[in-house]
């Protein structure tokens, strides 16, 4: 009886300990690593170092990044890079949870809006200017400071240059008699879209989910006003007339079938490359970021030619509204035990020609000139992407402020765009609602800063 009891107690204790052990094992490693690194960065020569590197992406990006990590083993045999990669869905949640819990990877890929938000709320990232191992001289300094510099610190570096452009299925466009050389304005694209849909009701000119529609409306507003659509001081950057005319265009474009109806296209929100209309080649053009080109191209047969052009620009535009921004950014966690090694790896990843040749355009066009040249020489950059980025840089519009990238603020516009697209609001009503909702949302966001 007694023996049994003791036995049971032992079993219970073992189970409890193993559970507790399981919980805490995550912490034991870094503290151990801390001790070994106690002598400072100097000892980092041959010492075994493990770095965690997290990113999101598609198959191409995963394969190329893993190949680059493999190649880095030759450069620094003592460094092991643990890859943590996944698709875009859920990545933001994971990163923010990890950052708040202090368990993020040493090197992480971030999206611009999150970076703007995170740097406003806390201190999470290493100032890369302090890292002598990291060479920033190859970057376009304006691009670097516009997007990487927060509170005087270089919190992150762009992974690639991403430009808003028109991605065109040239093979299909030629068949349909749609010019791929035209610089579209809002009237000409409306006429072309209307004509196409009237001739064949299964076809639409433009592929867009509600996020792309939002981008189109913002572009239109910027071109009208020459200003941000929401200002840095949390006020609305356009007048009611601007909104009415933009929504009027949207309403008539939706009615004429310039865009695929949003109820159909939004089933593929965030994954427009899976839209059957695009895959079956019933839609020839997609206004989108250049970084989506590869996935849009990969779903089409090999002999289909994809080209790029500038997005729609109004004839009398005060600003082109062409968005040029980092595809993503890389940051190093300031909780990392091996910041110097992490900076060394990141330096190699961004600046080394060999790395650039492996990575190619998986994060759009490299932001470092020499890396870009190396990737082009290796034949690893799609000419259409280079074209989009070059056009974008040449015609770049004003840089979005962080308020404009706030997901709650964008949501307000998206909701109202849906109402107009479904014909549930007139442009007049929608403009009124947009301005009042936006004003109160901006105030709320401001109050939380």
């Amino acid at each position, binding site marked *: 009886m007694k023996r049994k*009891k003791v036995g049971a107690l032992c079993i219970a204790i073992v*189970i409890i300990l193993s559970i507790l052990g399981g919980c805490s094992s995550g912490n034991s490693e870094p503290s151990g690593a801390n001790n070994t690194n106690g002598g400072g960065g100097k000892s980092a020569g041959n010492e075994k170092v493990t770095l965690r590197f997290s990113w999101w992406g598609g198959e191409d990006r995963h394969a190329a990044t893993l190949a680059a990590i493999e190649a880095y083993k030759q450069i620094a045999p003592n460094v092991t890079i643990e890859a943590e990669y996944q698709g875009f869905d859920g990545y933001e949640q994971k990163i923010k949870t990890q*950052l*708040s819990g202090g368990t993020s990877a040493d090197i992480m890929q971030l999206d611009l809006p999150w970076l703007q938000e995170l740097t406003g*709320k806390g201190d999470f990232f290493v100032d890369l200017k302090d890292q002598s191992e990291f060479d920033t001289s190859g970057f376009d300094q304006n691009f670097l400071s516009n997007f990487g510099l927060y509170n005087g610190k270089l919190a992150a570096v762009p992974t690639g240059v991403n430009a808003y452009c028109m991605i065109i299925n040239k093979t299909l466009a030629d068949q349909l008699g749609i010019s791929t050389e035209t610089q579209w304005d809002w009237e000409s694209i409306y006429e072309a879209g209307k004509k196409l849909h009237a001739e064949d009701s299964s076809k639409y000119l433009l592929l867009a989910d509600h996020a792309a529609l939002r981008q189109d409306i913002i572009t239109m507003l910027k071109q009208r006003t020459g200003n941000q659509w929401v200002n840095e001081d949390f006020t609305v950057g356009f007048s009611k007339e601007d909104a009415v005319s933009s929504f009027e265009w949207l309403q008539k474009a939706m009615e004429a079938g310039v865009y695929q*109806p949003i109820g159909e296209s939004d089933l593929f929100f965030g994954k427009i490359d899976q839209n*059957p209309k695009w895959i079956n080649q019933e839609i020839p053009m997609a206004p989108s970021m250049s970084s989506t080109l590869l996935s849009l191209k990969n779903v089409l047969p090999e002999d289909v030619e994809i080209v790029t052009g500038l997005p729609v620009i109004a004839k009398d535009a005060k600003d082109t509204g062409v968005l040029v921004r980092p595809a993503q950014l890389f940051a190093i966690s300031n909780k990392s035990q091996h910041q110097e090694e992490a900076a060394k790896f990141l330096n190699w990843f961004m600046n080394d020609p060999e790395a650039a040749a492996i990575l190619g355009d998986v994060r759009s066009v490299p932001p470092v000139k020499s890396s870009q040249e190396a990737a082009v020489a290796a034949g690893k950059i799609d000419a259409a992407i280079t074209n989009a980025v070059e056009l974008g840089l040449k015609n770049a519009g004003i840089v979005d402020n962080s308020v404009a990238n706030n997901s709650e603020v964008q949501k307000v516009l998206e909701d109202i765009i849906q109402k107009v697209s479904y014909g549930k609001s007139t442009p007049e009503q929608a403009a009124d609602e947009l301005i009042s909702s936006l004003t109160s949302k901006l105030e709320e966001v401001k109050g*939380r800063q």
Partner: protein
Amino acid sequence: MSVSNSVPAKAQKHVGQKIRVKKNYQYIGLLYIAPWIIGLLVFQFYPFLSSLYYSFTDYNMVSTPKFIGLDNYKKIFTADPDFYQSLKVTGIYVLLAVPVKLAFALFIAVLLSAKLKGINLFRTVYYLPSILGGSVAISVLWRFLFMKEGVINHMLGYLHIGPVDWLGSPDVALYTLGLLTVWQFGSSMVLFLAGLQQIPNDLYEAGSIDGASKVRMFFKITVPLLTPIVLFNLVMQMVNAFQEFTGAFVITNGGPMKSTFLYALKLYEEAFSFFKMGYASALSWILFIIIMVVTAVIFKTSNSWVYYEDGRG
């Protein structure tokens, strides 16, 4: 008269010993289930209570939470139209999906209680959708079935019907999602099936001797004797339906025009798109209270419609 007074002293001692032994057994039992208890405390009870605390703060995951009293709740009720929209959508969804699902489950259960050759195979096959369940893969499949150029419309095309905009129309999308839930009737059906086997055959024999029709016997014998199971299924399915998430998230993402913006999606959006964890915690507590109240109401009314064979009903 109390019990202890009537027991002689010697016997009392004996009883005391017995109780001690019993206590020890309980102690060991507790140890055996300790892993589960710890799991419950750490992974359920702690988050449960901390979410209550967070609902009174402006927690956003990256900065330290600040106590703001009832502000979150005030804002939800006074300044958040999406809250009411999501409540409305969820209400319709629950009122629609739960009864239809239960009726369908009962219908299939009655069919499957027939004594046929190979009936077990049929039972297995009909349970399959529930195993596949509310998974992401099934939701993606649902999207491809019901999209404008999907399989369903294609087949309807042969009958010269449609095409119906199953998922793209704000008036239809919620019902299409409801269908997905109804399709997962398996777990309710299994319970109904078990309940049907419990009903004594002599009742039906008596019924048929008295000349009752099949339909009459179903409503006068089967249904009353199944009401305890109906109650259980109703509560469980209602609780699940209030928290429905996967289908609406994967297939329509709350659209079109927020017509499928279920409460769980609203909660998810606040928590994981906007990272307003405090606000989302408040939302989750409101949902918790709503479910508690509805459950209580169902239990209260059950006195008048649930029939227990032992006469408690």
